[in-house]
């Protein structure tokens, strides 16, 4: 057979690839491969000139296939597919060779790296020969949206949809809306009341005709695919447990399940749970709420100490920073002062993280109100013990103070532990329910950390707020709006393109052995007892290929991942 006319483009990615891989040599060797009519090396293939170069060659050299050797296809495959499409070539006639993430960034020996790059390009050229023109399926986009979690993120998103006149189902596990923010008094840096922020939203959400708020409710199952999900929601009817389930059609899902605070009792040297007046930030919020800052015994504390990074930025608990505690701590210092002007407040921290709008000023202003700042080493956290009867305080905190280099002992009647954020214990269930992944700390993984922070690897499922990672209110709200914006855009189009990559049964080959039937996680495989053949419902198929590998007749074809394509790749990498 006559090989299709193929163009090969080796991206230098500035110097990211070129500094290790000899891109010209890779292009030259590609030029020798059967079917390759043009092979170029260029500084930035993903740039407009880069894409235009491809378009032009498709035109001039009547290219039928394109291979781009550059970064990971997970990064720019859509970019280059669009480039092919605009040049009038089927987007699936593209194949990428990953010579950045998997070559130039991980190998330093230029010769060896270039060798490997050549092999990967060879494989790509081999493979692309077998590519077939595929058409994306266009299906109706259901305009309704399911939002899981009634915190600030969930409510914000819900209001966005409602504002656009779109139906929302807001599912909250608890019997009230508000989430964690409802447990907070004032907010940094401007000390406006979280209450007001929340209360206002709760009324707008509950009163909105487009928002169906379901309290005491949980999503039981989510089937279907982007634009066409079916969600089953179970309402708890109070004490007698399981209640009725409702099933709703939605086109998209926004997960806003938030976070839970770190359990302070896990840090033994702070004596939380043993020492009555060692409390967590949220317990302190409740005091502020009730407007009475006092010890368990009801006395007014003379010495108040605030300890940062409880459970955060610590090797044995969470390596990450919880991002909001530092500023909240400063907020507490000020609130204590205003409540008990005579009291002494000491703030025991590791590093003071005051990034973001207005925060540095806030830090400075807090310093002015005579707060005693003590810096401790992450490895050497402070130790709290009961004071002796003759001391004028209840507890003594021993701190290895970094700036002075001395071991300082300070008095305390009330100790506030700034507990960090961690992923909710049910985040695993939620991830499985909506089929998204979690990172090692249990936070949901976004489609791309920088370029696509609210989408996930499952089309139609979005994440917003602290279920993805610790963040503050402005970021959370921004994400919620971003997610809503993305979805509203799709709803506006009314149609949605499904990836053309899915499995297909050749019923002339299917023997009806039914080996595949059990394997599909999306029940996309139907067996027709009449014809004694199995067949795949393409819209439900998510292209994992489990049935393709299992089919002993080779009757199931994985579009864009066919045996021929993979065989060709194997031969290529080993050539």
């Amino acid at each position, binding site marked *: 057979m006559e090989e299709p006319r193929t163009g090969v483009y080796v991206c230098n990615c500035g110097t990211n690839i070129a500094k290790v891989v000899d891109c010209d040599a890779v292009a030259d060797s590609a030029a020798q491969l059967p079917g390759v009519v043009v092979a170029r090396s260029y500084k930035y293939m993903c740039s407009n000139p880069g894409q235009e170069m491809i378009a032009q060659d498709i035109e001039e050299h009547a290219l039928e296939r394109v291979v781009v050797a550059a970064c990971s296809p*997970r990064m720019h495959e859509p970019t280059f597919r669009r480039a092919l499409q605009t040049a009038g070539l089927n987007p699936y006639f593209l194949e990428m060779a990953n010579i950045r993430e998997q070559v130039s960034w991980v190998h330093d020996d230029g010769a060896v*790296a270039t060798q490997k790059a050549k092999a*990967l390009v060879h*494989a790509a050229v081999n493979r692309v020969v077998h590519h077939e023109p595929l058409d994306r399926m266009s299906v109706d986009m259901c305009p309704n949206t399911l939002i899981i979690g009634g915190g600030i993120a969930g409510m914000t998103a819900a209001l966005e949809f409602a504002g656009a006149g779109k139906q929302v189902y807001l599912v909250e596990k608890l019997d009230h809306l508000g989430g964690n923010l409802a447990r907070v008094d004032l907010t940094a840096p401007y000390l406006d009341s979280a209450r007001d922020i929340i209360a206002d939203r709760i009324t707008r959400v509950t009163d909105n005709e487009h928002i169906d708020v379901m309290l005491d409710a949980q999503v039981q199952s989510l089937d279907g695919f982007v634009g066409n999900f079916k969600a089953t929601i179970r309402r708890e009817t109070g004490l007698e447990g399981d209640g009725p389930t409702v099933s709703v059609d939605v086109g998209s899902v926004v997960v806003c399940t938030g976070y839970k605070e770190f359990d302070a009792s896990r840090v033994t040297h702070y004596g939380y749970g043993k020492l009555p007046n060692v409390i967590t930030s949220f317990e302190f919020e409740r005091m502020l709420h009730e407007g009475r800052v006092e010890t368990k015994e009801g006395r007014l504390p003379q010495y108040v100490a605030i300890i940062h990074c409880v459970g955060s930025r610590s090797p044995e608990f969470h390596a990450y920073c919880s991002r909001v505690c530092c500023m909240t701590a400063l907020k507490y210092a000020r609130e204590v002062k205003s409540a008990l002007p005579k009291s002494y407040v000491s703030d025991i921290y590791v590093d003071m993280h005051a990034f973001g709008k207005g925060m540095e000023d806030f830090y400075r202003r807090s310093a002015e109100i005579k707060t005693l700042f003590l810096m401790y080493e992450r490895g050497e956290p402070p130790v709290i013990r009961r004071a002796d009867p003759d001391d004028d305080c209840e507890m003594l905190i021993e701190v290895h103070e970094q700036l002075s280099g001395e071991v300082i002992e300070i008095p305390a009647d009330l100790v506030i532990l700034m507990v960090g954020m961690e992923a909710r214990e049910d985040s695993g269930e939620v991830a499985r329910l909506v089929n998204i992944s979690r990172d090692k700390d249990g936070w949901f993984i976004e489609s791309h950390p920088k370029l696509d922070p609210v989408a996930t690897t499952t089309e139609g499922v979005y994440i917003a707020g602290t279920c993805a990672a610790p963040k503050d209110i402005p970021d959370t709200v921004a994400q919620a709006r971003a997610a809503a914006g993305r979805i509203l855009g799709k709803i506006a189009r009314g149609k949605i393109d499904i990836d053309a990559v899915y499995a297909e049964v050749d019923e002339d080959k299917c023997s009806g052995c039914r080996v595949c039937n059990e394997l599909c996680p999306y029940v996309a495989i139907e067996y027709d007892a009449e014809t004694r053949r199995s067949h795949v419902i393409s819209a439900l198929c998510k292209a*994992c290929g489990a049935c393709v590998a299992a089919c002993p007749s080779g009757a199931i074809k994985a579009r864009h*991942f066919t045996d021929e394509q993979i065989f060709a790749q194997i031969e290529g990498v080993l050539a």
Partner: protein
Amino acid sequence: MTFEPKIVGFLCNWCSYTGADLAGTSRVHYAPNVRIIRVMCSARIDPTFVLKALHDGADGVLVCGCHPGDCHYSEGNYKAMRRFPLLKQLLADYGIEEDRVHLEWISASEGQRFADVVDDMTERVRALGPSHVRFDLASDMAER
């Protein structure tokens, strides 16, 4: 000069391949012997791929999927896990050294681990020396 094994790696798109990308973005260096082929899910990996790779001259084959319970397709990696032991048995029946074919779970966040797995596998296959599997009919008939 030392023997540099050729290893073919079949990686699932969502976890392992992303993990390998992460090794790249984190600039974790590792042995250049593995040539990666991307599939959507480890469940797509037909044992034929492994035999074909060995037949075409691979000294080793590395198969990677998401960690059990954490598959993008909910249970695809269990399907790979079920096929693997029987494949290993078949290869053993052929008399092929166990270390030449290896299954590993790599999550999207395990760039470092991916690099370690590759280095480790490369060392083990290097220690085994070149594969004797590659079959060339002409030379076989010549010496019969």
